[in-house]
């Protein structure tokens, strides 16, 4: 049993019991971040803030939302949007944040790919990040079901149908997931549970893992330079802040993060109040109707690239390509055979691979939305083949990469 003395202050009282000084030092003032970074390094904080916005707005929405097929639509569009004071604000904030969070996730991901931040001990950062991507995708999909509009219903129908596995005809599995032959009350209830409890809990756990994974390998820097953190930290602490290659998480890194966050919030709130349709599809303002299939069924923009990998092929091939697309990013640290953990611009063929992948995913995203006919379906097919081809090429081109 530890020895406790009479506390001299509240701080001392807490310090004896919770070691708040040590915690602050380890988590904030002596948590070292490289100085050689740009604003893309703030995307983690932007994501944390956006997740907090989603959580808080979600709690307010949860107070009025009714997970019942007869009441859900009106509880969102009438009760929350029109009757509850500022209910519309929370819903717009929640809807827009759910869309924007994926934009930031993609920027964060491609930053990691560009700077090689998934290699040399940083594999777990990448893997926990990709698990977060999966969890956020599930969270976004389950949340999209809740207003019980036309797109909720039909997206639920299409996505759960994927689990029949094409020729495997695992219809029993689909019914098991839905709890019914078609999306109905059981379906809405379980997706409600997933959205407000199970997946958020998983996300919070994964965020902890993601942060923890950063601790030992440290944050990467703009040049992929290997830093001696202890030596640099000593330099910093001795007063040579300008000469040290590291900065403290608080206030140094945080002040830059908050600057980026504040600029991001200007963009975010502009969307919330003045440009929200992209995140709140008009079709979903029609109540769910199982007898009326919408002319175009498409997922939200952030799922379009993987949807387009599914679409141009026959059912079975499409499902296999889709499954491939879902897991392949997770394997990136192992498919990239080069020992170089430097920016793509200094990595030979990988530089072209990076930009080709980015452009290809944007093409897939665009083709995933337009009707799959004529030239669009041809472009979609080639873009999907390019996606698969690029991943097959990755181990080969990186194996022959010269040491940078």
């Amino acid at each position, binding site marked *: 049993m530890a020895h406790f003395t009479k506390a001299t202050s509240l701080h001392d009282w807490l310090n004896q019991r919770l070691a708040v000084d040590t915690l602050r030092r380890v988590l904030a003032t002596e948590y070292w971040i490289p100085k050689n970074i740009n604003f893309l390094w703030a995307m983690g904080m932007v994501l944390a803030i956006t997740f907090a916005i989603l959580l808080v707005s979600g709690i307010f929405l949860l107070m009025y939302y009714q997970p019942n097929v007869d009441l859900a639509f009106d509880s969102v569009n009438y009760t929350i949007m029109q009757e509850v004071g500022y209910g519309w604000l929370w819903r717009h904030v929640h809807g827009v944040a759910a869309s924007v969070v994926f934009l930031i996730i993609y920027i964060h991901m491609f930053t990691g790919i560009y700077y090689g931040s998934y290699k040399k001990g940083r594999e777990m950062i990448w893997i926990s990040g990709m698990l977060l991507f999966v969890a956020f995708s599930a969270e976004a999909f389950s949340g999209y079901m809740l207003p019980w509009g036309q797109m909720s219903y039909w997206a639920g129908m299409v996505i759960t149908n994927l689990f029949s596995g094409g020729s495997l005809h695992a219809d029993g599995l689909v019914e098991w997931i839905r709890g019914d032959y078609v999306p109905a009350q059981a379906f809405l209830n379980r997706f409600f549970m997933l959205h407000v409890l199970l997946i958020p809990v998983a996300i919070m756990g994964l965020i902890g893992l993601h942060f923890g994974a950063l601790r030992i390998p440290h944050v990467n820097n703009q040049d992929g330079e290997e830093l001696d953190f202890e030596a640099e930290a000593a330099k910093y602490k001795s007063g040579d802040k300008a000469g040290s290659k590291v900065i403290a998480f608080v206030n140094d890194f945080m002040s830059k993060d*908050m*600057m980026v966050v504040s600029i991001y*919030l*200007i963009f975010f709130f502009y969307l919330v109040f003045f440009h929200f349709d*992209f995140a709140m599809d*008009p079709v979903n303002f029609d109540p769910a109707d199982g007898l009326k299939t919408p002319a175009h069924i498409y997922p939200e923009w952030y799922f379009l690239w993987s949807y387009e990998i599914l679409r141009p092929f026959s059912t079975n091939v499409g499902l296999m390509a889709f499954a491939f697309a879902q897991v392949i990013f997770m394997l990136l640290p192992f498919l990239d055979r080069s020992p170089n953990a430097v920016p793509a611009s200094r990595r030979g063929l990988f530089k072209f691979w990076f930009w080709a992948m980015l452009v290809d995913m944007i093409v897939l995203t665009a083709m995933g939305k337009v009707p799959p006919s004529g030239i669009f379906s041809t472009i979609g097919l080639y873009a999907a083949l390019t996606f698969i081809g690029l991943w097959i090429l990755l181990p080969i081109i990186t194996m022959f990469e010269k040491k940078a």
Partner: protein
Amino acid sequence: MKELFILAVVTTFTLVTYYLVEPFAHSHMHKHHESEKFVYEDLPALTKQGDVARGKDLVMGAGACVGCHAIKVEGMAAPMDAVTSASAYGVNPPDLSDAGSVFDAKFLAALIKNPAHALMLEHKYNDKTGKTFPMPPFYGAGGDLDQEIADMVAYLQSIAPKGEELTPKMAFETACGRCHAVHYQYEKDGERHPAWTQIGEHPTFKHKQDELAYETQVLDYQDSLVKYLGKLPPDLSMYIRSRGEHFLSTFAENPQNYLKGTAMPRVGLNAEAAEKVIEHLADVGDSKRHERDAVGKNVMIYIIIFAIFALLWKKQVWKELH
């Protein structure tokens, strides 16, 4: 400088993706029709100057308009209640009190002369199908047909509310409200409005029995509509968000443009009334739009001030790091 370059790259890719997924994709997914500005070019122009007094005689005359239509402002009640009318004609004929300011004059004249043509329903009512539109064409009272019609239109315009007297709600009720329900209540200028059913505002009842009796009437009315139109016209509560202003106004202007063969008639609104109908739908389905704009402006100011402080903090902290 390098950071600005990176920001430019990120912004460019984001905007390209946005452009492709939103404006570009939607232009390939939906038919777009420009507004015809409610001029009804296919209908003949009014050439005669109408006379209100003669028009009144024609409208009120035996076997004329008031045989089926109410004109409440002139003290003429409907010959039958809404439910009975609907079972006879398919839909309750409108009260003509507002007709002169809701509908375009050219359209009204064409409607009196040949309803199925003016309403763009000739694909449904023609010699081949053997169906005739419930409202008979006006064959004239013995004089010059065009003059008589001009007189009737002049009379309807003379009794109709002028300018602001026609509220968005009135415009909606006359133009859409006999086929479409709007089951959301709404508040405007501090006044609460009940839900709208095809037979009027849904009253509040003390006794469940009375409420059920009322709802039975609504269901009977809706049954007549289904027989008449093929399906129950949709509830318009959220149409301002699901369809948007442009679609709603161009659809009302010419439903056949979007849905070839639809049983929905051309509404025949004039431009001002069309704006009022849209405003009413926004009052119901997007009632917080003014609050959204006002709060939005304040939040933007707040966030910009926050950003200035964040910038200053960063500058201060990083002064000794460089």
